[in-house]
């Protein structure tokens, strides 16, 4: 008897939450403004917790990526060929420079073209021994595969200009995994360049002038001509991985199971919005069938708005490019 009462109580509670009933003023409790506000507060608290996990020392957040530098080069060259340009050649010195840039970002905990101490990207070209005529840099982080990273660069006009510039002949890629702001992150550094010696016209000896041994002009001021340096203008401890090998394996990294903050947020958002959409559908159908008149917003409008939110949640992808 007591068990039956308990089951009835649970059923009543579920009806109260999910369906319009006399106990909830003919409107499913889950879609009452007070309850939706609770969802909003809980989502905000959840985000705050996600932000505080890294500072608490728990290393469970991160992006499990599987990005091979060779793949980034291949896809980049595919885009160039499609645009009628010559493919770029992989240059080990440029890859070394890119790796140095990635290491610098992780060691000094920044995510930008110019380091906090003012080091410009092309310093890494020079320090690695790459004398350039033209140089460029694209950066990406938190992508799970090379296709989405290159697609993101192609979607941004400034990065696309770099990627499809006819000035460049060589490319160097570094894919580096490490802690950035306490979150395990995968950074892709894409360096483009053309060696100074490749573009200096040879002077006929007959003219009696010595062959040019002049060092390339290196400047950290904006774009001297003809030496060009371009990177898209906006917006700890590291583990470096050789440019020839994929860096971060999908799944557990170094014995730790990583949780992607983006994927977790996306999952939670889909559950919350999906739940409210379902309750709204049933609530709308039942109130229409029972011809219940009530003061409130239009169910169809809420359904459309939350449907759009659901679509946006599905459209949004992880990853940043600068």
């Amino acid at each position: 008897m007591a068990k039956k009462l308990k089951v009835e109580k649970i059923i009543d509670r579920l009806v109260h939450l999910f369906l319009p009933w006399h106990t909830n003023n003919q409107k499913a409790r889950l879609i009452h403004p007070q309850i939706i506000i609770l969802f909003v507060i809980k989502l905000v608290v959840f985000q705050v917790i996600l932000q505080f996990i890294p500072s608490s020392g728990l290393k469970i957040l991160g992006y499990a990526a599987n990005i091979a530098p060779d793949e980034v080069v291949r896809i980049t060259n595919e885009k160039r060929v499609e645009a009628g340009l010559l493919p770029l050649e992989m240059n080990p010195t440029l890859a070394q420079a890119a790796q140095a840039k990635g290491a610098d970002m992780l060691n000094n905990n920044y995510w930008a073209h110019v380091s906090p101490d003012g080091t410009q990207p092309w310093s890494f070209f020079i320090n690695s021994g790459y004398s350039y005529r033209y140089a460029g840099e694209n950066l990406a982080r938190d992508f799970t595969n090379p296709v989405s990273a290159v697609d993101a660069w192609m979607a941004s006009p400034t990065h696309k200009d770099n990627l499809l510039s006819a000035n460049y002949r060589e490319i160097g890629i570094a894919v580096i995994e490490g802690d950035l702001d306490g979150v395990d992150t995968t950074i892709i550094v894409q360096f483009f360049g053309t060696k100074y010696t490749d573009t200096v016209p040879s002077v006929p000896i007959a003219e009696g002038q010595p062959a040019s041994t002049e060092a390339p002009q290196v400047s950290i001021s904006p774009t001297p001509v003809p030496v060009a340096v371009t990177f898209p203008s906006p917006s700890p401890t590291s583990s470096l991985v050789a440019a020839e090998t994929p860096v971060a394996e999908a799944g557990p990294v170094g014995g730790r199971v990583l949780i992607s903050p983006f994927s977790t947020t996306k999952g939670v958002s889909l559950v919350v919005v999906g739940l409210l959409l379902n309750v709204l559908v049933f609530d709308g159908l039942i109130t229409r069938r029972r011809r219940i008149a009530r003061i409130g917003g239009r169910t169809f409008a809420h359904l459309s708005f939350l449907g759009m939110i659901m679509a946006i949640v599905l459209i949004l992808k992880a990853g940043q490019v600068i």
Partner: protein
Amino acid sequence: MKKIIKDLPHYLSLAGILAAGIIGFMVFSYERVFLIAVAIGLALAYVAWGIIHHAIHRDLYLSVVVEYIVVASLGLVVILSLIFQA
């Protein structure tokens, strides 16, 4: 359904707002500032739509406005959380 057909201009404008939101997110993917602007714009436009729609129907009450604000806030928090975690 009859109600929706009767108010077709209202719902067409709502569809326009929502379609603009989705297109904005597709076009400005990876442009964080634009995405934030589109998300805030969408939430404000939805609340404005709700107020205008109910005002025309002469059933605009404080509880109705609060309901639209709450639903828009939920959408905004969901989208902003994802933008900042991306």
